[in-house]
């Protein structure tokens, strides 16, 4: 009986803990838009995520854009931040034409976009490779001011096979999880003879 009560208390505690982040980040009621999907505008850093990697003589800057959000092509810029770095203007693919009666026609990107930035370094190795990316985007009914971020492009290994997943930590996490479950299984089976073929 007592044990059931303890279990219950633990569940209540866990449920309360699970609700806590929601309460902390709850929006005041008066921050509401015209319909439900507008009430939860994403913070700019969540709506637009940016990362960069080095590939040969180019830096590839990639933006991942949340559903329903978009970035303006003409507001995207990549500049050198390291003192010894020289970058050429970013090469961007054609965007989707978006016409607004009050703003005119602009090219925008949905979902994701990658800029190719040729670069050279006068004194390679003396400074960490840093670039500054600027971008501006909107969603229906809301626009974010232009944002600038300093990004450290990751140096990719040219020897890596093409079929490697882009994010190796994913593989590590999956293997780690599988190993943990295997270990847990072994602990539970402790005392019994493992039926391992010779």
């Amino acid at each position, binding site marked *: 009986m007592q044990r059931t009560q303890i279990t219950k208390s633990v569940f209540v505690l866990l449920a309360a803990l699970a609700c806590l982040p929601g309460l902390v980040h709850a929006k*005041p009621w008066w921050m509401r838009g015209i*319909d439900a999907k507008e009430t939860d505008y994403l913070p700019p850093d969540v709506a637009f995520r940016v990362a960069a*990697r080095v590939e040969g003589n180019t830096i590839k800057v990639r933006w991942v854009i949340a559903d329903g959000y978009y970035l303006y092509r003409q507001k995207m810029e990549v500049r050198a931040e390291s003192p010894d770095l020289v970058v050429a203007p970013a090469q961007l693919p054609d965007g989707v034409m978006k016409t607004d009666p009050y703003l005119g026609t602009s090219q925008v990107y949905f979902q994701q976009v990658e800029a190719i930035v040729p670069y050279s370094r006068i004194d390679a190795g003396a400074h960490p490779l840093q670039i*500054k990316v600027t971008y501006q985007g909107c969603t229906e009914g809301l626009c974010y001011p232009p*944002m600038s971020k300093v990004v450290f492009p990751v140096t990719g290994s040219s020897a890596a096979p093409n079929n490697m997943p882009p994010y190796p930590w994913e593989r590590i996490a999956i293997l780690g999880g599988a190993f943990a479950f295997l270990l*847990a299984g072994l602990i539970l089976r402790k005392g019994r003879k493992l039926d391992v073929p010779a």
Partner: protein
Amino acid sequence: MKTPGLRYFGAALVVLLGIWLGFKFHAAHSVQEVGVAVPAGIAGPPDSNDPAQLETAPPQVAIPERLPQFSLKDLTGKQTPVSSWSGKSLMINFWATWCAPCRREIPLLKTLAADWAGRDLTIVGIAVDYPDKVRAFAGEFKIDYPLLVGEQDAMDVAARFGMTSPGFPFTVFTDNRGEVVALFLGELHRPQAELILSEVRSLNEDRTQLAQARQAIAEGLERIAAKHSG
């Protein structure tokens, strides 16, 4: 590991350890992958090239209960305190010329300014933008309500309304006692504006209390939203 309970506990511990390690790997490697290490915050207007304008975001502040006192330049360059309109209900609209939904709101704001002119309501536009751009735009769109303009200083005013990392447009409604009745984030449409303004008028005429007015606005906005999506 004699008791089964202890074994289960051990197993759970190992699983949790595995998950924790997974997260740790994820965090360590994703920082390196994403490579965004130095937050540069929010830049000034779109074609700003001044790195001094890039600042880290100030800490989160709450939406104030009362209208904070501030002052910004008008289109002639004259420093204008918000207290110039004290005793009036205010509809303070934060906007920028580069923001499409902000531009779309302007005709509605002009109409409301005309409709509510005799009812102690003043619409004040705060453009987070360059003054010359705002002057040109105000001339083109024939904006006849007061406009204040600023760059970082206007962002600082937005932050005083709790919008430290703002999206535009957003509109603050106050009653004639200077109480902040509502802050509406995003493009305002006529039904919402009229709903909020009618509650502001009820407050001004002492026909309702602030908490009741806010409740009525919340419910009204829900109804409008339901109608719009349904």
